[in-house]
């Protein structure tokens, strides 16, 4: 890599828009004899011209719309951050409710007494205790899923 000691000076002159008219005669003479600096000038001048033309031609939209969009997004993010612990609490409550429901069902479907009667009724209708438990759980879970989905939306 061959780099000239005057390349920084040339780069500054180009960026400031002083090339070639406001550049010193000494610098112009150097560029005409230095390959690296000539390349730098060729590339730098092309970029400066292009940038000036593009910047001039660009029509901008109102910044208010972006401001409003940013505010909306920031508030949405903040609300999501706040509602995350609430979501956790809801899930915990649902799991606890499910455990209680399963325990209660287990208690009902045991042999003897009221439980035995209920069991015999279920068997009379062709429902095995296991199927009854699964159906009841499915109904419960279905309600939970519907609730959580609607709440998320």
């Amino acid at each position, binding site marked *: *890599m061959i*780099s000239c000691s005057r390349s920084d000076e040339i*780069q500054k002159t*180009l*960026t400031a828009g002083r090339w070639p008219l406001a550049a010193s005669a000494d610098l112009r003479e150097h560029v005409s004899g230095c390959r690296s600096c000539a*390349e*730098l000038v*060729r*590339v*730098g*001048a*092309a*970029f*400066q*011209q*292009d*940038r000036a*033309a*593009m*910047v001039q031609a*660009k029509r*901008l*939209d109102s*910044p*208010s719309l*972006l*401001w409003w*969009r*940013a*505010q909306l*997004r*920031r*508030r949405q*993010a*903040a*609300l999501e*951050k*706040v509602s995350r612990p609430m979501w956790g609490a809801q899930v915990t409550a649902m799991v606890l409710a499910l455990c209680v429901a399963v325990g209660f069902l287990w208690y009902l479907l045991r042999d003897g007494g009221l439980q035995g009667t209920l069991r015999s009724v279920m068997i009379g209708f062709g429902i095995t205790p296991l199927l009854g438990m699964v159906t009841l759980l499915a109904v419960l879970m279905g309600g939970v899923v519907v609730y959580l989905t609607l709440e998320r939306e």
Partner: protein
Amino acid sequence: MTTIWPQAAPAALNEAVTAELPMDNGAFAGFYERTARPLWAYLARSSGDQALADDLMQESFVRFLCADAPTDGDVEARRYLFRIASNLLRDHWRRPVAASIEDMPEMAFAAADTTAGWDARAQLAPALASLRPRERQMLWLAHAEGYSHREVAEIMGLGSASIRLLLFRARRKLATLLEKGGRA
């Protein structure tokens, strides 16, 4: 119905709803006026797609406002904005799409500036099309925006040690192309 808002609302929720942006509307309007056009030019030339540049420019400003961007100085804020835009460009190029930006710039660049005549600017567009996106980005930042090697490295997320060599090679490649009239 009993109104509980805002007195009984949890403090965190209240804070969330009234979340303020780091820059007020007036300050942002001034910053936008000063930086939007150069940012758009950078995105348009790096991507070769003006519609994409429009989208990425808007997204850059929204992300800039949503992030806790440095607002104490224009130079810092501007550099931060260019970094966001560079990340968005990189994400765009990484996304697997049928019409990748890597495949299209030649046509996109050739279509632009056909009326500009045979000057350096007219040669620049087709010459840039022959370069890799990363080369276009670093050349634009260094030569159009006037950023130092360290700043270019910071904006593009590259090591500052390698940027000097990468930039030198890209510049040599582009200078050769410009010498030939912009065509590879």
